[in-house]
């Protein structure tokens, strides 16, 4: 158990932008909410998965909807408590803690808002170890935990309780309700016991985000130190350095799709990388050869400062470093690969771990 203060929240937000693998949106509004909640309320307690009560209920609380709407119409503030209580009431169990649904953007911050408001501890765990575009793409889903019971609410106090036959139904119905609520909503879903969360969650993710944020903040220690620390903490492989020469984007079905083309710099001079993304980065090729694919993480950062950025922020001329991070072992199971591997996203090849691809390339 440790306390979380404003500076910690800053670092976690930065790290979550990196671990979000290109997705998750701009954490600005979320970070402000968390910082001002901590300023007005209590410092938040962060507990590790070893400290969970096996009998109590733990649940993520998250924002759902269009990130661009969230910058104009943000929450009233009591929505988070409302959905969490509703989910706990359904299960007739006491609430043990809350955790982020994903490591990325605004949703890495929401548990800290709620934690500061209520004193409920935040658990150092998530169910993706990164960000993913769809509700069923979680390690909890792999372990048989269902999305339902799910609660969804808006700032006016409207509330929906979903009890669906499959997780895909929850995704469909919740998306419609979100639009009616003004294209942003607050949800709680995937509630589970401490025992199950220990078994199925990705432990230590918030601490990892915080460590990444701290590394990025310490420019003064030099680029080499930063790269070495990043490698130690995330097992990252430095896949590429280069300059963005092309970005093609389309929006369909509520998702941003696109491809980024990067011309090599430094030791990668003369090579070309392409990255495909759907909200998050999906696959990366160097000179036509696969360098990394989902569920491994393809993370983007400024070539000099290592400030992370999302796929939406990529512009012609940006100089960036591209990192490949091995995903959590839970994703490297047959069920994991089926849920979020390259074939799920429409690519006609099998998943190969990023570190093996690197060995093949020499």
């Amino acid at each position: 158990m440790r306390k979380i203060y404003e500076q910690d929240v800053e670092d976690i937000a930065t790290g979550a932008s990196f671990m979000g693998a290109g997705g998750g949106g701009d954490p600005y509004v979320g970070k402000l909410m968390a910082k001002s909640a901590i300023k007005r309320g209590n410092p938040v307690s962060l507990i590790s998965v070893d400290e969970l009560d096996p009998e109590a209920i733990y649940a993520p609380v998250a924002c759902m909807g269009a990130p661009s709407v969230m910058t104009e119409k943000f929450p009233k503030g009591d929505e988070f408590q409302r959905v969490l209580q509703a989910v706990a009431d359904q299960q007739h169990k006491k609430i043990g803690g809350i955790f982020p649904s994903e490591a990325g953007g605004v949703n890495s911050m929401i548990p800290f808002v709620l934690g500061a408001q209520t004193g409920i501890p935040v658990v150092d765990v998530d169910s993706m170890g990164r960000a993913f575009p769809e509700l069923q793409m979680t390690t909890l889903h792999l372990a048989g935990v269902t999305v339902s019971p799910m609660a969804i609410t808006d700032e006016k106090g409207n509330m929906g309780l979903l009890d669906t036959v499959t997780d895909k139904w929850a995704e469909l119905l919740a998306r419609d309700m979100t639009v009616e609520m003004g294209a942003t909503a607050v949800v709680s879903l995937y509630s589970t016991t401490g025992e199950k969360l220990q078994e199925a969650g990705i432990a230590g993710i918030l601490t990892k985000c915080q460590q990444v944020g701290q590394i990025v903040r310490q420019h003064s220690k030099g680029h080499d130190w930063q790269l070495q620390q990043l490698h130690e903490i995330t097992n990252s492989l430095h896949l590429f350095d280069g300059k963005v020469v092309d970005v093609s984007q389309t929006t369909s079905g509520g998702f941003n799709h696109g491809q980024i083309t990067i011309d090599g710099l430094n030791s990668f001079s003369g090579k070309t990388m392409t990255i495909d993304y759907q909200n998050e980065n999906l696959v990366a090729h160097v000179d036509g050869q696969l360098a990394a694919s989902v569920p491994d993480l393809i993370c983007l950062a400024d070539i000099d400062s290592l400030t992370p950025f999302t796929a939406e922020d990529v512009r012609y001329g940006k100089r960036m470093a591209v990192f490949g991070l091995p995903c959590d072992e839970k994703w490297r199971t047959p069920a994991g690969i089926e849920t979020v591997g390259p074939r799920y996203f429409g690519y006609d090849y099998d998943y190969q771990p990023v570190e093996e691809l690197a060995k093949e390339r020499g």
Partner: protein
Amino acid sequence: MEYRLGVDVGGTNTDAVILTEKNEVIAHTKSHTTPDIQTGITNSVNKVLQNVNFDKSAISTAMLGTTQCTNAIVERKNLISVGVIRLGYPATLSLPPFTDWPADLVEALHPLTATLRGGNEFDGRKISQFDDAEVTSTLEKWRGKVSSLAVIGVFSLVNDEEEKRVAELAHQLYGDNFPVSCSAAVGSLGLIERENATILNSALNQVMQRTADGFINSLQQAGVSAATPYLCQNDGTLMSIDYARQHPILTIGSGPTNSIRGAAYLSSLENAMVMDIGGTTSDLGVLVNGFPRESSVAVDVGGIRTNFRMPDILSIGLGGGSIVRQQEDGSVTVGPDSVGYQIEDKALCFGGDTVTTTDIAVRLGQAQVGDPQLVQKKISLEFAQKAAAKIKAMLEESIDNMKTKAGDVDLLLVGGGAIVAPQTLKGVGKIYRDSLGSVANAIGATIAQIGSEYERLYTYDKVPRKEALADAQQKATDQAVQAGADGSTTHLVLVEETPIAYAPGNTTKVKLKVVGNLHIAGH
């Protein structure tokens, strides 16, 4: 024949130019900026008029570009108290106004805030029912405690009627001259950034009144009494002095914009990259259809995040006074420190002992400044070539960073330090230079047109695209005419449509801009 007078007040110099109605530059001058601004303007205007021989009453328009408002925010000076009314209850309560502001600036504004009923969803539905009585009772409570109002409605870009209604009620209660800023007229999507810009706009009201009065007084004192006064905005267009009194925030960032526009005029190009090389830094901007490209990221002003229209400028630490050093490993570094305004004492070619980029240009025969003999002795050819290669690489990298697509661009070089740039650069087609480059800023102020931008969300399934675009163009044109444009000359220079993911009914953010010539009475 009619003439135009342009004045640009920078941090160091106040420049003035006179142009004919055909935009020929017939006189230009530089003098030092003074603490009270007005004296510097009066000096420059008097000086520039000494060089011409026509009647002062032939000057029909006078334009001012100024950094007054930026300085007021940065220095926390001369700001007035602000009452902030947000419309959208119960949404947005988690982040009240001023959440992310520096404490000393909040203190300078003595603000009162309230979040009241009203506001829109992204598709135009109401968040809650707007209530006249609630607004009136809030205003009654604040009577005598605030000197200005800022009104911000959630999604007011979809519909700004409620913001306007609050302004109307405030004028009924506090009098017609009470300053009220409505956010839809100030910023774009992103409530926090738009609110910040609206609050600053209100707080700057008095600074702007003083600037406007000062400019008018300077013109009177210099005998330029027939000229209509205008102020420059950050997007390279003009505002009438009355419009500027309402929108002071729009003057912020007009400096770099004017140099980009001035450079464009000197070269007659519409699309090019512009590099203004000063003593310490080089500012790089991009000209698109005759106007500076806008920045797409949130811009900080004095530590506050805003989203109003700013030119996309990249600054690098390379100027005519940048210090050049030999490192132990044999490599050569340039800048980021500079001898700045002391160049005439410190640079080698002026008898000083510091090697600057200007000395490198003199050593290689690129420039004739000071005494070349002094440089020949102290700088080896090899060292000069290494330094020149470094300067070239720095410029090339910054140019490449500002490109939005591959291929060569044309480059306009202006500013006092332009002599340090090489004759050719990778990624650049043609390089343009001009002897009037040092007053490009004031020229940019003088040739500015009247423009107006309009941004709104339209649902194309309800309002067909063609109708929506026509509606937006009409709104923008009305705004331009109100700001002083001749309605018969306005035309579209920009249309941007951004689809909103998740939103049904084909909801699209439409942003467009029209510009037109100045409306001159009697023409």
